[in-house]
């Protein structure tokens, strides 16, 4: 049974039919990519899955139970976490604190226990802090722990946001154009990193423009055009699919 099943999902904004009857499946432990030209509905689809928008029609199931129309925090509770196209780190907090918020779902100290700093709360705090440092190390940015998150360099902020997303031990992570703004060397590093994330047993759903990244690491690739899915199979066959080539005419550099 697939980890994520999207079936017949549609979303209209006023006159624009952003997503039109899209359906696809993501198996456990897979790296799945969703590609398509600008305005193809990739980010809208992303926001539908992560609960920022409720679909007009169609169903989204994660590990069997429906999540369409749920609030983002409920979707996160099911085990899906995400990054954002335009990085959304918490201003006024250090990088480490940002990542620790990612651990929110895996900790439970509330208002009263937070105020009283009960023994178990202190132990939980230490554990959250330790886990966050470990993830920042995993992404190679642990030396930025105490820096103001929003004043870090662009690439560093991306890494911190990714660490934050991973910090809730999700079953699946949604990456919204992670390679945007990165040069060739950084993209290659990112590819290795995504594979290492998958090796930790986390399923990856990727929205991306950068073909070199997508084709290199994806198990399956779905292609969207004007809100409709026009292809969905392994990278090799997708590249040769005549419809995909037509949509991407002239852009594809094999």
């Amino acid at each position: 049974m697939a980890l994520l099943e999207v079936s017949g999902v549609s979303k209209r904004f006023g006159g624009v039919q952003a997503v039109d009857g899209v359906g696809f499946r993501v198996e456990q432990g897979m790296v799945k990519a969703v590609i398509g030209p600008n305005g193809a509905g990739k980010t809208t689809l992303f926001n539908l899955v992560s609960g920022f928008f409720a679909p007009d029609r169609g169903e989204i199931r994660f590990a069997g139970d429906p999540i369409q129309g749920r609030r983002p925090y409920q979707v996160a509770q099911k085990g899906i976490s995400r990054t954002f196209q335009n990085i959304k780190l918490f201003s006024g907090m250090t990088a480490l604190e940002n990542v620790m918020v990612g651990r929110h779902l895996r900790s439970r100290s509330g208002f009263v226990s937070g105020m009283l700093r009960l023994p178990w709360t202190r132990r939980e705090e230490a554990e959250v802090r330790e886990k966050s440092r470990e993830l920042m190390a995993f992404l190679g940015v642990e030396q930025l722990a105490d820096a103001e998150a929003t004043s870090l360099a662009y690439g560093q902020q991306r890494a911190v946001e990714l660490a934050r997303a991973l910090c809730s031990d999700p079953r699946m992570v949604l990456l919204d154009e992670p390679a945007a703004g990165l040069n060739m060397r950084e993209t290659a590093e990112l590819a290795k990193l995504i594979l290492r994330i998958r090796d930790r047993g986390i399923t990856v759903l990727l929205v991306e423009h950068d073909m070199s990244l997508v084709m290199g690491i994806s198990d399956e690739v779905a292609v969207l055009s004007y809100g409709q899915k026009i292809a969905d199979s392994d990278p090799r066959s997708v590249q040769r699919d005549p419809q995909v080539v037509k949509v991407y005419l002239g852009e594809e550099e094999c």
Partner: protein
Amino acid sequence: MRSVRLRQVAVFLVLAGALQLGAIAVGKPFWQTQLTMSAYYALVAVGLSLLMGYAGQISLGHAGFFAVGGYGSALLTTWDLSAHKAAGVLQALQAMGAVVARPDPFGGTVLTVHPWPAAVVAVLLAMAAAWLVGIPVLKLSGHYLAMATLGVGTIIAAIAVGTQALGAADGISGVPPLPLLLGVGVGGATSQRVANYWVAIGLLAVCMILLLNLVDSRVGRALRAIHGAEDAADAMGVDTARYKLHTFVVSAGLAALAGVFLTHFNGGIGPSEASIMKSVKYVAMVAVGGMGSLWGTLGVSLLLNFLSLRGYFGTLDDAVFGAILIGIMLFSPDGIMSPDLRRILVAGWRRLRPAPASVEKGASEEGR
């Protein structure tokens, strides 16, 4: 991090002690009365600073929650129940000590609720009101939230002035002291002025410890995340609506707690405590103290309330308040705690004393 917080509270307590001794040394032990009142008003401002500075939600109706706390305990501790003494439930309450007979100022005996259960009921009432009101209100944001909380404050103020049982325009007076241990009571008795001063400073210090802990805990981080980027916090699994609501309820609870203690200290409460201008003053003190700074808010509200209660500015009291408001907001938007204001103070101080020929150290902090 924990030691830093305790050190700060310890320094605050030492400062409070120094201030008290200084006042007595200068022959002005009476300042403690105004300082005690200012400490309770500071408690409201600090609670509001949590809501505005950390959860980023504005409230123009906080004097209303102060009044719910104050009026709640005032009504329960002055309402003479002896008329229906026979009622079974009353006997039960009396047996439990929740209802007590006590002499009233004019020689008769009155059967009223004991101040402590009254205080608990009043604070819970205010928190319940905040909960009920918070649910629909906190869906709004920005100006609409300001308006909704202003509306709630207006309704509470209208009820306070309009209800005969709450003493209409005269408010409620003759409120007995809140008994603490070893005979000390939160009340106007001049013999207990020192004790009352330390009760107020103690209550403020305890609440500061709790709030500082909260701000540095999981919940605190979630609140700052909501303030920083609400939808990102949502995606991280933070139920933003519930956290904003809980913070609103906690800050309303603190305001009501201050209302209860100050009403006992003053021996009464008037409808002016629920007025909109009072709410506006609390908001201003939080802004002037620095939105995210509990200590800044505490310092500013202690000072401004003290000076206003001492009547130093006479008929210009409001004008001075308005001027301070504009001055701080224009020249130091992050309030008195902002790095650039401190840089000016440090620079000024360094210029005063003959500075050794050391090279000016570049200030490393970035402004928020």
